């Protein structure tokens, strides 16, 4: 049986970034994971401090913002880590509740910055500028 590589350090970095730089709340690393290219892929969940996009009607039943699902990814000047469509499909299917329409990709670059992008399930109307 293959030993899967854990990504604690990466997950911890993203968690700290969301909690203490972007000032999100309730940021947790999920327990469930899927195996992918020798790694354990885990999502983080958390609540943003404000609406992430004007197009969002992303309000929960109690009127607060919905929980976001975050996938941490490594990026390097001289190496690549692949996240494929197949991998994203698996994540939507196995790690998110049915209603979740998008992931937040937290791309941790080796220059010390973390950038965030949305990845939607299926086709999504382009964002208004």
């Amino acid at each position, binding site marked *: 049986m293959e030993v899967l590589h854990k990504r604690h350090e990466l997950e911890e970095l993203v968690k700290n970034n969301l909690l203490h730089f972007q000032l999100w709340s309730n940021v947790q690393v999920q327990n469930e994971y899927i195996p992918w290219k020798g790694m354990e892929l885990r999502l983080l969940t958390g609540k943003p401090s404000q609406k992430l996009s004007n197009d969002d009607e992303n309000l929960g039943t109690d009127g607060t913002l919905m929980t976001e699902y975050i996938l941490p990814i490594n990026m390097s000047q001289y190496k690549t880590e692949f996240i494929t469509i197949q991998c994203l499909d698996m994540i939507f299917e196995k790690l998110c509740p049915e209603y979740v329409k998008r992931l937040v990709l937290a791309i941790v670059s*080796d220059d010390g910055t973390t950038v965030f992008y949305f990845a939607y399930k299926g086709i999504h109307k382009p964002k208004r500028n």
Partner: protein
Amino acid sequence: MSKGKSNYTSQLRYKFPLPIHPIDDLPLLILHNPVSWICYLYKYMKSHNRLQKRIHVEINGDSFPHILVEDQGQMIYLWDNGFFGTGQLSRSEPTWRSRTSIRLGINDDTLQNEQSAKSQVALEKLTERRRQQRLEFKRERDKSEKQLLELRRKGGSIEEEEALLEKEREALREYKANQLLKSVDEEEPNELRMEDENLIDENGRIIKLESLQLMPVEAIFLSYALPVIDIPIPELMERLCGGTVEYETIHKLITRYVAYHHYRSHGWCVRSGIKFGCDYILYKRGPPFQHAEFCIMVMDAEVPRDYTWYSTVARVTGGARKTFVLCYVQRLVSQDKILEAWDRKDFTTIFSSYKVAEVIYKRWVPGKNRD
């Protein structure tokens, strides 16, 4: 942003472009006074400009190494002397602790550079405020567009439509003008969150959560080109690329480094270009002084790219009003020669076996760009 208005304090704080300083405390040399020659020579022989203590780096992570400086003083030193590294919880300068202490209203006497921290905080606040305002404006615009849609649905006449449009435009203009009047100071203080409790240690001080992270090429520069960090270059390269290597695994790192070294040695302040989708951005002096002028993409001289690739990158950098530079790095010797030198740990031979040439790529619109 207050870039460009370089004041006296920042001139002083960022006096040196690199972490190694020239020897500038030599006594006066008076030509007709031989005693002064002796003084001068003695002082000249005795002084050196090495760092008293090399800066300690930790390298975390195995397949994707993170090169970190954790000592607060050393973090600030590397930032002040050449703008090396990025604070992991900041936009660039590591200001997380000062920002947090102000956000939580905690006075921390261990914080250095208090004054500059405050001005930096103001800057990050300003950006946040501007983003917030832009969002609010878009929300407002959305509302007026919904009204227009409503009118069309009801089958309003063209005159009615135009009257509504004019009214809405005026309202939006007013809204924007009012937004600009509001200053940053009017903001209410942030609420404390549960999570913030974990940030304060038993002495009532903010914990050290942020490290300064160096790009791999910055670490190579500070170990190979300048004796600044405490990891020898062979060890660093092995940590980055592994013990036994093939040419493919080291090619990207070498070409990126050759380009980085090229611009640093021409006096540019080189920082990561990730926010603009390119490899590097070049500052004439550094981020506090002016915006970066150039976006650099490091290219393999032999590898062709399709046209859409160029136009995609050029549109992004053009949108940020930066000049897009294609930096071609060409290998002049065989791959085997490079690998041989790698085994000998002869990095000078490796880095000097590449040639750099640049091309500027600019989108040209016949109707607009007349000069």
